C-alpha cells in the first residue's frame, strides 16, 4: 500500500561484536546453559566407575525407572511455559490418582478395566484440584513456587484427614480389607496387585514387542545375554504425551501460554485473559500428574497411602532441573534427560557410598541432598538473574 524504499535506522553500537568472539560466546553459552546436566553426567559416570556396577543391572533399573517416572516430570512443562515456575503442586494431582486407586480397589475392579476406570475417576478430581490450585496461585503472583510447595503440604494434611478419619466414618466403607483394624481410616499400604502392570503389559500376548527389540539388537550387536524390558503401552503413552506437548506449543493456546509466561502485562494489553491462562496451565499440569501417578503405581504394585505422593513434587522438579531446565525454560528433552540422570544417580549413589565410605547411607543422603541442592541452586540462579535483569533494564533506559 505504500512505497517500498527501505528506511535506515541507527544500530546499537554494542550489537556489533566481531565474529570470532561470537563463536566463542556461543560455545560458552551452550556450556553454561547445560552445565547442570554436564556436572551430573560426570558425577554419575564417576560413581559408576567407582562402584563398578554391572551394566545389565544398571540398565534394567534405569529403564524401569524411566518408564515409571518420565510422565510425571513431563507434567511440569506447561506451567513453566506459562510463567508459573516449577509447579510443586503436582502433589495434588498425585493425590487425585491415589484416591481413584483406592476407589477401584474398594469396588474390586481389576486388571486393565480397573486401571481404565481409575484414569476416568482421576480426571475430574484432578481438574477440580488444579482449578483450586490455579486460583490460589493467581493470588500469590510472584511467589507461585513457594505457594505451590506450601499448598502441597497443606493438601497433604487434608488428604490425611480424609483418609484417616473420614473414611469409615463420614464415608461408610463396606470393603473391610481396605481399612485399618479399627474400621476407621484406610490402611497404610493398599495392595494393587489387581492392576499391577495393567498398563505396562497391556499388549503382552498381542505383540511380542520386546522379542522384536531383542531381535533388532542382536542384528546390530550380535549375540546378547540380556535385554532391558520396555513396557510397550507405557512407552506409547509417554510418546503420545511428548507429541501432544509439541503439538500444543504450536497452537493458538500454546502461543497464549508462552506469551503470558514471558510478560503478563503485555499479554493483558493485547487482550489475552492472563488469569484464566494461568489457571488452565495448572489444571493441565495437575491432571497430567494424576495420570502419571497411576502409571507410577501400576508399575510399583502397592500404594503407600500416606507416603507415595509426598516426594512426588521434589523428585520430579529435581529431575527436570538436572536435565538442564530452569524456572522459565523447560523442554521435553530436558525432562527426559533429567529423568535418566536423576534416576541413575538414585541407583548408583548408595552403591558408590558403600564402596567409597563403607556405608550405603552416605549415598542415600547424598542423593536427597543433590535433589534439594539442585532445586535450591536453580531457584537462586533464577532470582539472581531476575535481579540483574531489573538492574540492566533500569540502566539501559
Amino acid at each position, binding site marked *: 500500500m505504500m512505497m517500498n524504499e527501505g528506511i535506515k535506522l541507527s544500530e546499537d553500537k554494542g550489537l556489533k561484536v566481531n565474529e570470532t568472539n561470537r563463536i566463542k560466546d556461543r560455545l560458552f553459552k551452550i556450556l553454561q546453559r547445560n552445565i547442570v546436566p554436564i556436572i551430573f553426567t560426570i558425577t554419575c559416570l564417576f560413581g559408576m566407575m567407582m562402584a563398578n556396577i554391572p551394566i545389565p543391572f544398571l540398565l534394567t533399573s534405569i529403564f524401569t525407572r524411566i518408564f515409571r517416572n518420565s510422565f510425571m516430570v513431563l507434567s511440569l512443562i506447561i506451567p513453566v511455559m506459562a510463567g508459573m515456575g516449577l509447579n510443586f503442586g503436582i502433589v495434588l494431582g498425585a493425590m487425585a490418582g491415589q484416591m481413584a486407586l483406592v476407589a477401584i480397589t474398594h469396588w474390586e475392579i481389576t486388571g486393565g478395566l480397573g486401571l481404565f476406570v481409575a484414569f476416568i475417576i482421576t480426571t475430574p478430581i484432578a481438574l477440580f484440584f488444579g482449578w483450586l490450585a490455579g486460583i490460589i496461585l493467581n493470588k*500469590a503472583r510472584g511467589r507461585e513456587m513457594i505457594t505451590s510447595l506450601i499448598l502441597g503440604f497443606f493438601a497433604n494434611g*487434608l488428604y490425611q484427614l480424609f483418609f484417616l478419619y473420614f473414611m469409615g466414618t463420614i464415608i461408610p466403607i463396606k470393603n473391610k480389607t481396605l481399612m485399618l483394624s*479399627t474400621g476407621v481410616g484406610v490402611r497404610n499400604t493398599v495392595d494393587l496387585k489387581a492392576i499391577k502392570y495393567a498398563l505396562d503389559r497391556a499388549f503382552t500376548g498381542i505383540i511380542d514387542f520386546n522379542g522384536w527389540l531383542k531381535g533388532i539388537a542382536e542384528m546390530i550387536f550380535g549375540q546378547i545375554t540380556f535385554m532391558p524390558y520396555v513396557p510397550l503401552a507405557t512407552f506409547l503413552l509417554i510418546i503420545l504425551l511428548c507429541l501432544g506437548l509439541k503439538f500444543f506449543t504450536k497452537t493458538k493456546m500454546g502461543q497464549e501460554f508462552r506469551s503470558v509466561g514471558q510478560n503478563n502485562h503485555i499479554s493483558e494489553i493485547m487482550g489475552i485473559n492472563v488469569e484464566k491462562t494461568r489457571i488452565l496451565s495448572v489444571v493441565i499440569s495437575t491432571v497430567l500428574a494424576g495420570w502419571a501417578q497411576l502409571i507410577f503405581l501400576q508399575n510399583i504394585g502397592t500404594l503407600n497411602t500416606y507416603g507415595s505422593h509426598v516426594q512426588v513434587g521434589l523428585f520430579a522438579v529435581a529431575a527436570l532441573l538436572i536435565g538442564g531446565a530452569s524456572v522459565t525454560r523447560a523442554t521435553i528433552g530436558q525432562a527426559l534427560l533429567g529423568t535418566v540422570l536423576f534416576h541413575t544417580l538414585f541407583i548408583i549413589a548408595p552403591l558408590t557410598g558403600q564402596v567409597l565410605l563403607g*556405608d550405603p547411607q552416605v549415598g542415600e543422603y547424598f542423593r*536427597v541432598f543433590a535433589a534439594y541442592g539442585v532445586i535450591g541452586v536453580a531457584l537462586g540462579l533464577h532470582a539472581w538473574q531476575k535481579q540483574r535483569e531489573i538492574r540492566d533494564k533500569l540502566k539501559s533506559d
Partner: protein
Amino acid sequence: MRSNAISLINNIGYPRLIIASFLLLLLIMAFVLEMDMPDLFSSVLIRTAMNGILVLAMVPSIKAGLGPNFALPIGIVCGLVGAVVSIEMGYQGFAGFFSALAIAIPLAILAGIIYGYLLNKVKGQEMTVGTYAGFSIASGMCIFWLLAPLYSPKMIWPYGGAGLRVTITLDGIFDKVLNNFLSFEIFGMWVPTGLILFWIICSLLVKMFARSKTGLAMQAAGSNPGFARSSGINVNQTRIIGNTISTVLGAIGILVYAQSYGFLQLYTAPLFMAFPAVAAILIGGASINKATITHVFIGTFLFQSLLVVAMPVTNLIIQGNMAEIARIIIGNGMILYALTRSVGSE
C-alpha cells in the same frame, strides 16, 4: 455498632479469631471431659516457651525485609553441632548447655553472614530460595552426622553402625536444665521458670536491638529500602545483620527446645522445623513484611496450646493422632493464607 464490631474483627484478624475460639472450645471440652487441667496448663506453658525462641527468630528476618526465615534449618543445624561438640567434650548440666551455646553461636554468625550475602543476590525471592537452602543444608548435614569424627558413647549407636544416633537422649547431659531452674508448683501447675525467663530475656534483647541505631536502620531498610538509602543506610548490610540475628536465634532456639524436649533430633528432623515457627508468628498476627514481639507471644501461645490441648481431647473422642494432622493443616493453611494476602513483590 455493627461497623465497630467488624473493624474489631478485622483488627484481630479472622485467622486469630477462629483459632482462639477453637482453642477455647477445646479447653471447655477438656474441662467437661474432666481432664487434668493444671497438668494441661503446665504443658501449654512448657510447649509455648520451648518453641518461643524459634518463633522469635522470624522477627529480625521479617523486620529486615527478608520475609519469614524459611532457611531456619541453617541456624538449627548450627545449634545441633554446638550440642554434639559440647557432649563430645563431656560437659554436663548448665556447663553443657552454655558450652553448646558458646560453640553454636559463632557458627551461626558465620553461617548467617554467608547466607545473608547470598540472599542479597536473590532479592524478592528470599522465601522460595530460603526454603530450599534450608532443605539442602539440613539434608547435606545428614552426611556430616554420619561421618562426623565424634565418639562419645552417649551419641553413637551402642551396637555398632556408623555415625551418630538419630535421636540422642540428653538425660544426664543438659536435659531440662532451664526448665528446672527456679521452677515451682502452683495450684498443681508446674511452672518452668528458667525456660520462661530465658525466652523473655531473649525477647527483650531483640526488642532492645529494635530500638537501637542499627536496629532502627534495619527496620527502615526492611520496610522501605528507598527511604533507607536516602538516609545513608547500607541496605545490603542491614539485611545481612537481620539474617544473622535470625540464624543465631535459630541456633539458640533449637538448644532451648532440645533441653526441654530431652532429646537432640539429628538427620532429617531439622528439615521441616521452619514451617511451624513461620506458622506461629503468622497466627500471632504478623504478615510477610511486618512482625513484632507481641506477634511472637500471641502466635506461639495460640498455636502450641492448640496442639497441646487438641491431642488429649481428640484422643478421647477419636482414635489416632489427630494433633499431628491439625498441625499440618493449621500451620500450612496459615502460611498459605499469608502468602496469598499481601501483594507479590514482582
